[in-house]
């Protein structure tokens, strides 16, 4: 007798055949058939989170550190809409995510049925594509297509919505296999090398003439696994490298060339290097407003070569002299072939002088620890070699400034979306993807409360995440802006009425410590070296600001370097 399978089985079998090993989800009425079949799929490790938003962020963190697709699963209606922030976060940072949602039965579509929502419509602007499956036979082809869309070209999230009756329907296993083996109709965007503006001879002339070149390495370099090629080109052409926030890790920061993050809270020396550069090679980045400030004055002294895989990024935010559409990997290979061994000693010496004059060094406060002291200590204790996840806010910028990244895929943060609440579930996802590595989460006392329920999932999964709360009793970044730009009119930023995070950790069954002074660093070090999750509640100076800072919309000439922190509170 012919073996029949359900649509729900087909969903899971397709994922398995695509190489998916882990997925993050939360059950509900419209996905009960999938959870029923999941019972018999021991090869698929399902991580039961405590909120669907956590599933999406965990899948995102998983994808960022592993380079594989992240998969999340939720029920219809509120389950599906709870994924939305996570999907948008992945879209903004080009993270491959496959979101699978259950939907009400086909006969109920459009009838405002219980837990019905148009999740395909809702997610249209924040996905690469979204599918509503209308026939059981479409399951293997469309999930495979969704996978291909998410992982090809400029990566991103894809949603597949599956009505409950289609999950329950049956069709022959043979039919499933035949459809799965067929190629999808998807034609990925051409990744062939193309000059959108400029020419090879113009490129060669710019490279030859440049005396003060700088390379901006963005997330595209990390995504393309092009770090080795980057280092080859950098040494060959003798060019300093600055990073966008999400490009951190593409080049070691302890060497001759890596200058760290640029932009609003980037280093002075990195921003000065861009200000005085005569040639900027921008690879796998999109001239985001947090990088450029005022785009009209940004790189006003430089000729620009822009290399990116996405044609739609060309001249979107900043017009380049030469625009090349290709991946970071191919682009860097091409650049190596187009340049002869060069030397820019004088220029690099100038940058080193700036680095000595305006170093990024941990600040001190008279009464409390500062965030930079804690991050600096964590960086040294982990040999600059941990996977670092951040939430969003001041601590995010401090982590980017003070952790000495040396490897790609070791820094995860919500860059484009700036999603508070991202950190904890993303750290969970990272720990599932890399169970043998140390995962540090830097999170504020505001952000941790947005997805704090995932502490339970950390415990459940025995995920070795060090949850380092930089607790200043404020929504720090908003407070900083209110101090600097609204005459210190602090409005709805005071979090001095916080819960006791240590008691909360106890409630979730997690080890926890409090770090208030350098005397606590011995316990802090033990916690960082332990092999289980620990919540580390760091009480830090309340009103420290993140500096340097280029105020929004201004240029590097208006950079506020900052000084000693005069602690009032």
């Amino acid at each position, binding site marked *: 007798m012919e073996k029949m399978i359900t649509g729900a089985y087909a969903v899971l079998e397709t994922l398995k055949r695509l190489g998916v090993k882990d997925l993050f989800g939360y059950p509900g009425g419209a996905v009960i058939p999938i959870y029923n079949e999941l019972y018999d799929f021991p090869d698929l490790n399902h991580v039961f989170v405590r909120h669907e938003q956590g599933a999406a962020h965990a899948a995102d963190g998983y994808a960022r550190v592993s380079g594989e697709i992240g998969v999340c699963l939720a029920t219809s209606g509120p389950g599906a809409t709870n994924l939305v922030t996570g999907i948008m976060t992945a879209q903004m940072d080009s993270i491959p995510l496959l979101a699978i949602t259950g939907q009400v039965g086909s006969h109920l579509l459009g009838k405002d049925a219980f837990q019905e929502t148009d999740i*395909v*419509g809702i997610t*249209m*602007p924040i996905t*690469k*594509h*979204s599918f*509503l499956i209308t026939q059981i036979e479409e399951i293997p082809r469309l999930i495979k297509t969704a996978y291909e*869309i998410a992982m090809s*070209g*400029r990566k991103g999230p894809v949603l597949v919505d599956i009505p409950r009756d289609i999950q329950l329907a049956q069709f022959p296993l043979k039919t499933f296999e035949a459809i799965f083996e067929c190629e999808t109709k*998807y034609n990925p*965007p051409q990744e062939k090398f193309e000059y959108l503006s400029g020419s090879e001879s113009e490129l060669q002339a710019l490279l030859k003439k440049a005396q003060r070149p700088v390379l901006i390495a963005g997330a595209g370099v990390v995504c393309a696994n092009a770090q080795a090629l980057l280092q080859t080109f950098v040494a060959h052409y003798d060019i300093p490298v600055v990073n966008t926030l999400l490009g951190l890790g593409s080049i070691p920061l302890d060497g001759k060339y890596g200058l760290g993050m640029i932009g609003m809270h980037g280093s002075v020396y990195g921003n000065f290097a861009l200000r005085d550069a005569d040639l900027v090679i921008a690879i796998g980045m999109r001239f985001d407003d947090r990088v450029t400030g005022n785009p009209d004055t940004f790189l006003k002294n430089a000729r620009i070569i822009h290399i990116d895989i*996405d*044609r*739609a990024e*060309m*001249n*979107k935010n900043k017009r380049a002299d030469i625009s090349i559409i290709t991946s970071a990997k191919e682009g860097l290979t091409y650049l190596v072939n187009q340049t002869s061994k060069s030397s820019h000693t004088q220029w690099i010496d100038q940058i080193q002088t700036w680095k000595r004059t305006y170093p990024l060094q941990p600040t001190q406060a008279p009464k409390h620890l500062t965030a930079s002291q804690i991050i600096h200590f964590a960086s040294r204790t982990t040999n600059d070699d941990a996977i670092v996840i951040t939430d969003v806010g001041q601590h995010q910028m401090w982590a980017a400034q003070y952790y000495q990244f040396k490897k790609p895929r070791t820094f995860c943060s919500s860059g484009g979306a700036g999603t508070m609440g991202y950190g904890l579930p993303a750290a969970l996802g990272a720990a599932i993807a890399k169970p043998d590595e140390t995962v540090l989460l830097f999170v504020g006392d505001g952000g941790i409360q947005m997805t704090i329920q995932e502490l339970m999932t950390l415990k459940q999964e025995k995920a070795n995440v060090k949850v380092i709360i930089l607790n200043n009793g404020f929504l720090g970044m908003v407070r900083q802006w209110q101090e600097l730009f609204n005459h210190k009119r602090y409005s709805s930023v005071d979090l001095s009425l916080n819960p006791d995070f240590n008691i909360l950790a106890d409630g979730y069954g997690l080890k926890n410590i409090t770090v208030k002074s350098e005397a606590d660093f011995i316990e802090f070090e033990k916690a960082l070296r332990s092999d289980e999750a620990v919540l580390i509640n760091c009480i830090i100076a309340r009103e420290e600001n993140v500096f340097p800072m280029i105020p929004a919309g201004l240029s590097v000439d208006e950079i506020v370097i900052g000084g000693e922190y005069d602690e009032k509170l």
Partner: protein
Amino acid sequence: MKSYKIKVLVDSHAGTVARILSLFARRGISLESINSVDEHDSPYIAMLLGVNIEEDQLDVICHQIERLYDTVSVSVENI
């Protein structure tokens, strides 16, 4: 600002038109006209969108339409 006709050839599925039009809506751009016809001897549908926008905006929007899953090709005519 100039007026253009953007011709988009699409492999039409549920949501294709919404996806394309949302690229204008998110920028607060109102279309001046919209037509849609079957292409002879082709499985695709041609959409003709009339729009009054800046040239820079036009380039970016066209590239963003181009990268959509359902889009086959995009071309632009000045009016």
